[in-house]
């Protein structure tokens, strides 16, 4: 049967991985290529790279890194960050990305998902959404969670999938960084309205949190950054832990 997926996320700025890292046995702990190698060897099912740079020069550096990773690591690679146009899709796909994740770019230009899906196929387009409770309502935030768009998260997810998003990354701002578990209430509320794979993000602190997440058939993947980078949770051990609990894992 198809497995649940464990996905580490690497935020990259100035050609370096941002966020606390505590790797042993790796020459350069913040080198994205070294880290990608490490995660590949640890059994990560996919890798997500977020480009959190702004300038043209840094963007070029990012695509160079992407090319290097894609030349030696043969698992699915998703790229996000600063994707505003179909040309941005083209740029990263040519450097070896398999999927492209859109967030604020799709909020600014709602046709972006449709245009990209028509050109590259639904499987290539990932809608990433940062969601927070506002007056008890799940609301979409833009610009890395800084700007309240007023959009209803369930309606936005449904619209994105109708337009051709082939996967959803749902990041709960409410649980992000808290490490007290995924936002199961929010994830399930949104998942109930769409039929594409759901990648849960925000709140994982322990292996048990992933086991809780995967109790729900509609949850396909768990994404995290910090706990993997600091090795508080090691992917190989995590996947064995989950498999021992009857959850299908590639180990």
């Amino acid at each position: 049967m198809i497995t649940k997926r464990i996905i580490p996320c690497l935020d990259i700025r100035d050609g370096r991985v941002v966020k606390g890292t505590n790797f042993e046995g790796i020459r350069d702990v913040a080198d994205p290529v070294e880290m990608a190698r490490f995660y590949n060897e640890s059994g990560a099912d996919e890798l997500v790279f977020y480009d959190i740079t702004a300038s043209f020069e840094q963007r070029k550096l990012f695509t160079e890194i992407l090319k290097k990773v894609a030349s030696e690591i043969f698992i699915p690679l998703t790229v996000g960050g600063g994707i505003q146009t179909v040309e941005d899709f083209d740029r990263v796909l040519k450097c070896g990305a398999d999927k492209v994740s859109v967030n604020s770019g799709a909020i600014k230009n709602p046709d972006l998902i449709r245009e990209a899906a028509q050109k590259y196929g639904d499987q290539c387009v990932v809608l990433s959404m940062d969601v927070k409770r506002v007056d008890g309502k799940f609301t979409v935030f833009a610009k890395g969670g800084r700007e309240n768009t007023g959009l209803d998260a369930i309606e936005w997810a449904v619209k994105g999938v109708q337009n051709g998003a082939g996967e959803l990354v749902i990041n709960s701002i409410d649980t992000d960084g808290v490490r007290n578990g995924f936002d199961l209430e929010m994830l399930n509320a949104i998942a109930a309205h769409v039929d594409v794979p759901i990648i849960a993000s925000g709140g994982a602190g322990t292996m048990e949190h992933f086991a809780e997440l995967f109790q729900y058939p509609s949850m396909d993947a768990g994404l995290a950054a910090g706990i993997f980078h600091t090795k508080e949770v090691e992917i190989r051990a995590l996947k064995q832990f989950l498999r021992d609990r009857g959850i299908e894992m590639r180990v």
Partner: protein
Amino acid sequence: MTAVIDYGVGNLFSLCSSLAFLGVEAVVTNRVEDLQKADRIILPGVGAFGDAIAKLNETGLVEPLREEVKKGKPLLGICLGMQLLFEQSKEYGTHQGLGFLKGVVSPLADDITTGLKVPEMGWNSLQFQKKEHPLVKYIKEGDYVYYVHSFYAKDCADSLVAYSEYEVQVPGIVGNGMVMGTQFHPEKSGAVGLAILKAFCELK
């Protein structure tokens, strides 16, 4: 030399990178001479069947490809490229395939009743139907490979080498003689995928 057929369908970056990683000399081409000169041919593909077969026909490579296959040159179809090897597809209408393998490509959604998601996207394990096949030389039963697809081959018992369970049995590896294919993406299936590509690239 391995010829990778370029007919404007899909992204060849990962496939070419994985061949380079294996030290395989590969040429991405739409030229007849390259198909003739090649030791083996790979037919990649992502997208819709009808569009892909039309584009492949436009290249004028179909007849030369048939000639090479007739001579026994190894051919590997990947993902949509594998589906094109079959007789027919029912993806948005009915389309004729290359007919190298017996079978019909059908929508997964028609046969999924338990709420599994379509497309099937992710890692699934291989169950062997045939233990002896060139593509499974370096892998073992239960190994995981990466799928992204909404359609699958049916009525292809003759050529079934390995399948994955997704409520239905999804043919993962098919083959008849030197014509073979994978529904999953070997170039995205980590070490297992590389081992499959390596095995293919040893064939002459």
